[in-house]
């Protein structure tokens, strides 16, 4: 049984890149979306074990998504990773304060993400 990971990122190239990295880890099924709205729609339809989200997105921002997830009893246990760019310290700090588990600074190598995924998803 593979676990589902949701990736929320509006840039297509980043999204596919990250999705490809996550997909490369055995035992993970990836669901991707380009918008926070879509993410809100997907949440009740899937059982996600982990969410990876960008911060700056056009509809709702990633912080709002984190807040939504963390405030919702149905999802609050789901770990969230935020993807940030260097220099946006305030956004990153807020994300962590809202309950994001980890942050990744773009661009990053597959190895770092894979290690984090394995740790949080308790994969062998």
């Amino acid at each position, binding site marked *: 049984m593979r676990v589902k990971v949701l990736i929320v990122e509006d840039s297509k190239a980043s999204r596919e890149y990250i999705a490809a990295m996550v997909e490369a880890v055995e035992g993970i099924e990836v669901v991707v979306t380009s918008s926070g709205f879509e993410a*809100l729609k997907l949440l009740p339809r899937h059982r996600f074990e982990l969410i990876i989200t960008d911060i700056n997105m056009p509809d*709702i*921002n990633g*912080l709002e998504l984190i807040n939504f997830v963390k405030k919702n009893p149905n999802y609050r246990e789901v770990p969230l990773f935020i993807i940030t760019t260097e220099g946006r310290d305030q956004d990153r700090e807020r994300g962590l304060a809202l309950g994001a588990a980890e942050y990744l600074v773009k661009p990053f190598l597959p190895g770092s993400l894979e290690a984090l995924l394995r740790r949080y998803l308790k994969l062998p």
Partner: protein
Amino acid sequence: MSPGSKALAEFVAEATEILDALARDLLVLDERRGSEADPDLVNGIFRAAHSLKGLSGLFGQERISRLAHGTEDLLDRLRLGKLLLDGAVLDSLIEALDAFQALLGEAARGTESETLSARVEAMSARMASMGAPVEVAADDPLDRLELEAQVRSVFTEYEEHRLRENVRRGVSLWRVRAAFDLSDFDKGLAELNTRLKPLGEVISTLPSAQPGGAHGIAFDLIFGAQVDREALETGLKGTPAELSALTVRPAAAAATSALLQAVQPAATIHASAGAKSETRPGDAPTHDGAAGAAQDAVSGGVAAPDVPVRVTGAAPEAPRRGATPARGSRGAASRGTSEDAKASPAAGHSTSPKSGGKKKAVRATAAAMLPEAQQPLLSHVPEDMEPGPLEWPTSDADVPANAGGSPSPAPAPAPSSVPVVAYLQGAAKASPKGLSVAPMAPSGAPVGTPAALTADTSLRSLTQTVRVDIGRLDGLINMVGELLLIKANLQRLAESARQDGAVALSKLFGQELARETRGLERKLEALQEGLLEARMVPVGQVFDKLARLVRRITREAGKEIELAISGGEVELDKLIVEELSDPLMHLIRNAIDHGVESPDARLAAGKPRRAVVGLRAEQKGNHVVIEVSDDGSGIDEVRVREVAITRGLITFAQAQEMSRRELLNLIFQPGFSTARSVSELSGRGVGLDVVKNNLGNLSGIIDVWSERGKGTAFHLTLPVTLAIIRALLVGVSGRTYAVPLNSVLEIVSVQPREIRTVERREVLDLRGQTLPFVRLSRMFALPERPVGRHFVVVVGLAQERLGIAVDELHGQQDIVTKPLGGRLQSVRGISGATDLGNRRTVLVLDVAALLEEGMAVERRRA
């Protein structure tokens, strides 16, 4: 395609898309130079730079990433109000866009030029040093906004900045709550946004963490309204939105009141400056007349609205401290007030401490002098209880004209969301002459209608289009070409079955087969047509880019120019449109630099100061004609003749025989134009031979018209599509070549004795005219075969004619041409290749290049 090149293609495709969006938005900013920029627009441009940085970083495009980083950083400071958008900044952004385009071009080709790398470094350094550090204001206006820390904590830095700006400007702030069904909340939200956008700024959209029922979800939109409550309610009628006002406590009252007094010492001002320390949620911005006012007066314990209050020098208690926490669960509670207050000095905000107080005073004065203007949440200025439109100053001293009491909300002049080019095209359609003229000056820039604005703000994608790699379409077209070959074989089989049908059954079968084959043929033609249509894009795509260029060159050249664009909706093959931008840019550049006179010279010649450069496209049958014109000084053909003779392009004797038109066309000769000739001539010259070559590669023709004193026009005649062309198949020395039929004028059969030699050069007499003549076998150094007669294919482009002798004619055929890309680009006389079945590749002749070669031979003779 290898995985590497696929990734590169992916990168180039997405980067192009980002740059297109960037260019569009910058165009709008550029047009509105000098006026305040729409924060959404700046944010959009920032996001584009941000995406580009991420994208190029991922794909290892270091130079693009580096420049994007610098650009993003600059834009980030802009959108966060840490930097002012002045001319220098805007110019830098436009320059960066140009550099990005050049970088992307190099990335696509896999090259890296030193000059461009140096440019990136220089630009990055310059952008980093742009703008002065902003002094930190003593107080953060945001601290005065009563909003739960919890809500504030989910704002991004940018949203926080926009909120701060709205508070600072005294815009009334609302929480718009709406619940939707989970299945289609995005539609509902999009509609809500569409309604809200003309009424103000949606600062943030927060999904409510409270589960909105099993299938519902609620959102809080933080909204800065430019209209009063009534207008807001009207605007939201029919939506599930519920309004509640956000409270802003008054600013440091001591300073305000003191300054108020200083400015208007004896003024009698309604309401109180500092004593009214609280505005309750729900009623604050509304002021539905006396009831609300009375309620306010009672609950807030402030002076009745009609009681004049003299502002004295004794400052009331600092309102921030004295604020009573708001009551009621709907509104914002002021928990954490003291924390906010503590934190405030550190929080940056763009009002400098030196001028801050004075600015407040000015603003307060303006408000005081406009007693009708409603200032719902602007607690640091006196309040008035009469309903009226909300004042929304665009700068501290600038009061909108509508503040005086017109009931209809007039949105602040938002930057146009419609690029000027689209506007021009639209206007062109309505104009009877089909050519419209719009001034390039910012003052003439059209303002987007509310309808256009709303259409733009829908969150859903409005396009029904799918982006397809052109290579993929090429592949499909190739496949259709192959299917066409199979169909031809089937047809032949069917025909022979029908004719040889000795047995009745076989004959019947043959007829059936023939019928089905015809059906197949029709479907294939439809498929082919559909695919060709899929490749068509409006030529306006390239016109848009040119409009931007014109603005820039015009500024640089110190000329006054109106660009008249029409026919942007005319469609051409994507490949052709792409290839057109360079030649058109060249022509337009020449028109502005050399065709158009300076304003003074124009006035002296009795022309209007402002010159008109025209760019129009028109479909004529299977061709599209694009005209680049100017009303400048025209080309001096006498000078053209002199230059051509000096450079040895023609002899004096030849010049004597040439018509004016022929003389003008000499400007397309390689070697005609040099940098020097440009300044010498009243006209043009830079690389027109290059332009002509580019067009030749597209099977296009260029022609020039010019009249001294009146202007110049270049006409570019292009095929609508390149992918499938009708070709004449010819045989030479046992080889087969294809000649694009659109450049074939006629075919004549010639006996060897009819070929005459004039000064060691072969010519033909064609109806009394001497026709230059080449044998393709000799030109291509193929073994010549003795023939009883030649077929001479007469080809022509523009005014030039050439007879090309071949051995055989194999008939006409629709062919799918493939360019000789990659390593074969430099091959002369061949423009591409096609597949005629049986894996045989047939080369397509480059008629323009052959003409050039034939003409060169002729000129050498003279």
